[in-house]
Every structure is written in structure tokens, then in C-alpha cells.
């Protein structure tokens, strides 16, 4: 920050580390940080399809990389981050979407949040069922 130094030296509140001052801001930053997990997983998958296009040997090398302890650890972190994202995404949704009315009454925010979480659970179970079916 460039500040003109004159006779008057006004106090400028430092903003360094502002988000560590309040648990609310820490939760905010944690939720924003899930974007790095989404980015990391997008890169993992993009590398995967690139290796798949290069042939069987390249694909098997990618599979072998997934088996390393570092990759398992990374994916455990990603798993938790995506769960945090899913939770917070639907918590915020009532505030970001236009007001919804059913039968003349405004739909409660908590109802929207619960619907979102339910959808995530349904999709998760459906994906498990599809993968199980695909395995055969």
C-alpha cells in the first residue's frame, strides 16, 4: 500500500491476516479454499483423459500414480473438501437464488438447503449403484 507521508499521519488499520480475527471469517476462507480442491481434482481428471488418449501404457502409469500413498492422502483431503463444499454450497444457496413462492408463501431457506443436501445424497447413492452395475 503506498501512502503519502505528510505532517498528518492518519492511522490506517492493517488488513494483514484479517480473516484470522473472527471464526466466521475463518469459516468463510475455509469454504472459499475448497475451490483449490475442485481445481486439483479437475487437473487430476484432465491428466487422466490425456493419459487415456496416449494409450494403455500411459493409462496404466496414471493408475499406478493413483495408488501411491501421496495420491491416497491427496484424495482423502479432496474428499473432505468436496464434502465441505457440498455442505456450504447449499447453505448459501437460499441467499444467492431468487425468492421462491409456493402457494403464496415464501419457501424457507432451510427447506432449500435440505433439498440440496438430499439431492447430493440421492446422487451419491445413484452413482454407487451405477458403478456397481458398470463393474459387472
Amino acid at each position, binding site marked *: 500500500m503506498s501512502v503519502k507521508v505528510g505532517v498528518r499521519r492518519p492511522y490506517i488499520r492493517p488488513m494483514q491476516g484479517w480473516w484470522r480475527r473472527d471464526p466466521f471469517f475463518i469459516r468463510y476462507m475455509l469454504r472459499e479454499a475448497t475451490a483449490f480442491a475442485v481445481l486439483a481434482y479437475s487437473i487430476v*481428471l484432465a491428466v487422466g483423459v490425456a493419459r487415456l*488418449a496416449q494409450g494403455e501404457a500411459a493409462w496404466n502409469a496414471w493408475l499406478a500414480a493413483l495408488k501411491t500413498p501421496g495420491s*491416497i492422502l491427496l484424495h482423502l483431503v479432496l474428499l473432505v473438501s468436496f464434502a465441505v463444499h*457440498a455442505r456450504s454450497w447449499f447453505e448459501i444457496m437460499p441467499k444467492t437464488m431468487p425468492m421462491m413462492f409456493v402457494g403464496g408463501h415464501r419457501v424457507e431457506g432451510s427447506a432449500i438447503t435440505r433439498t440440496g443436501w438430499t439431492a447430493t445424497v440421492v446422487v451419491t447413492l445413484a452413482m454407487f449403484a451405477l458403478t456397481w452395475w*458398470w463393474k459387472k
Partner: protein
Amino acid sequence: MKRSNAPIFWLLFGGGGMLAALFGTVLVFITGLAAPLAWPFGPDLLSYPRVLAFAQNWIGKGFLFVIIMLFAWHAAHRIKVTLHDVGIHPGPVSKLVCYGGAMAITVVAAASLLSIGF
């Protein structure tokens, strides 16, 4: 008045965020943990012929592309906006790095999936 291009980035951010919330957790589990640990779907879940067939099917190909692309654009937009909160203000550089990165991931995914064929 020049029309803003912001709604395009919001749409990509919103779509990616929604897909990440609905599909992200289970996909990470399946590809990143279940497949390498061979549990509970067995060791051949992501074997080359199976995944190749999946990526050659237009549904599988479309699913992979949409997931990779929208996750990348969601992350790029959110990181760009959050950088502002830690003192890196929006400008051509942050825009180029964030959206450029998402574009690079999109191009890699599209080119790879197209070269795999149908």
C-alpha cells in the same frame, strides 16, 4: 454501453459449483480411493479397455468433459474472487492466470476426449 461478460463466468461458476456439490464427493471416492484401493468395486474397475469404452461412448465422453470443464471454471472464478480478499486485486493478471488456467484444462480435456474417438 458495453455489455458485461461477467454473467458467462457466473454461469460457469454456478454450474460447476452445483455439479461439484452433487457429484464431487462421490467421484473423488470412486476414482481416487475406491479404484486404487480395489475396494469395494474390485481391482479392475478402471482397467484400460473399460475406461476406453466409457470415454468412447458419447454419454461417458460428455460426462467427463462437462465435469472437468465446469470444475475448472468454477475453481478459477472462485479463486480469482477470493484473491481479492487477501490483497491481490482483480486485474488483467489475475484474470489471465485464473481463466487462462481453466481454458488450458478445458482444451486439454477436449482435445484428449476427441482424439480418443467415438
